[in-house]
Structure formats: C-alpha cells, structure tokens
C-alpha cells in the first residue's frame, strides 16, 4: 500500500513545488517572493523525507534538518532586510 501511495505523494508535492515556483516568478512584491521561497524550502523538506521513506534509508533526516535550519535563517534574514534595510546592525 505504501509503495502505491508514495509515487502519488511525489506527484502532489511536485505540483505544490510548481505552484510555489509560479508565485515566486509572478509575485508582485518582495514579501510575496520571500513567502514563496519559504514555501519552497518546506516543500523541499517534505520531498527529502519522502525520498528517505521511498529508498528505506534513515540517511536523509540530517539533510532535512539542515534544510530547515538554513531556510529559517534565510527567511529571517530577508525579512530583517526589509524591516531595517540592513541585516546585522
């Protein structure tokens, strides 16, 4: 059952990556693009975890954790840049 469901889940996640990427291209202002990048890294975490389930290895969680940390730092950095015009003061 799980082997049948995992390709469907991959397809749904790929569709959601596509929608977020369209918003990243289209987004009229800067916060829309930041939000699209935030959604893209969360989709990437879901894809990596699903790949770990598909290949049956526990190797991929460190990658997911790293993507989570780096994506959070990136989002915070971009938002601080919009707020202050400067990231570190």
């Amino acid at each position, binding site marked *: 059952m799980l082997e049948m469901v995992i390709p469907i889940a991959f397809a749904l996640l790929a569709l959601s990556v596509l929608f977020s990427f369209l918003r990243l291209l289209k987004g009229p202002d800067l916060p829309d693009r930041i*939000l699209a990048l935030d959604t893209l890294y969360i989709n990437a975490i879901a894809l990596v975890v699903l790949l770990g389930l598909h290949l049956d290895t526990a190797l991929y969680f460190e990658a997911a954790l790293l993507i989570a940390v780096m994506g959070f730092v990136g989002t915070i950095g971009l938002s601080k840049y919009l707020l202050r015009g400067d990231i570190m003061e």
Partner: protein
Amino acid sequence: MLDWILAALVLIGASFTLIGSIGLYKLPDFFMRLHGPTKATTLGVGAILIASVLYFSFTTESASLHEILVTVFLFITAPVSAHLMAKSALHIKLKKVERTRSD
C-alpha cells in the same frame, strides 16, 4: 494495519502541502497568501514526518526519534518567520485588497 496508517498519513501530508501551495498561488493579497502555506505546510510536513517516525520505528526495532527534531524545529520556527514576514510587509506598507482589514 500499519501500512494503511502510513499510507493515509503520507497522502494527508502531501495533500495538505498541495492545498497550501494552491492557496499561495490563488489568493488575492499578501496577507491572505500568508495564511495558506504557513498553516497547511506545517501540518503537511508534520504528517509526513510522523509517517516516517512510525515507519522507521517499526522496521528498525528501535525508536527513531530524530525526525521529531525536524517537526519540533518547524513548529517553533513557522510562526516566527510568518510573524516577521507580516511585520515587514506592514512596514513597507504593502497594498492590500479592501477586504483585508487593518486595525
């Protein structure tokens, strides 16, 4: 039985992620768009991570808890980043649809 629960969790997670991204694409306003992904993707990724915790706990005969770390980190950081994005959007006075109320 476990197989069915895992399949349901993976499907729920992927569908919620897709719904969040559709919301990000379709909604008319940044403040409405913020609502979609920040709620749906944490639930979606949370369901997929719970599925992977269950799978690796039952196949390797030992509790595999380091996926919980990703879940906890996401659940802590998602509201913080959403708050900062909304704050910066308010700061640069982003234009909004008149249905979006401000206080």
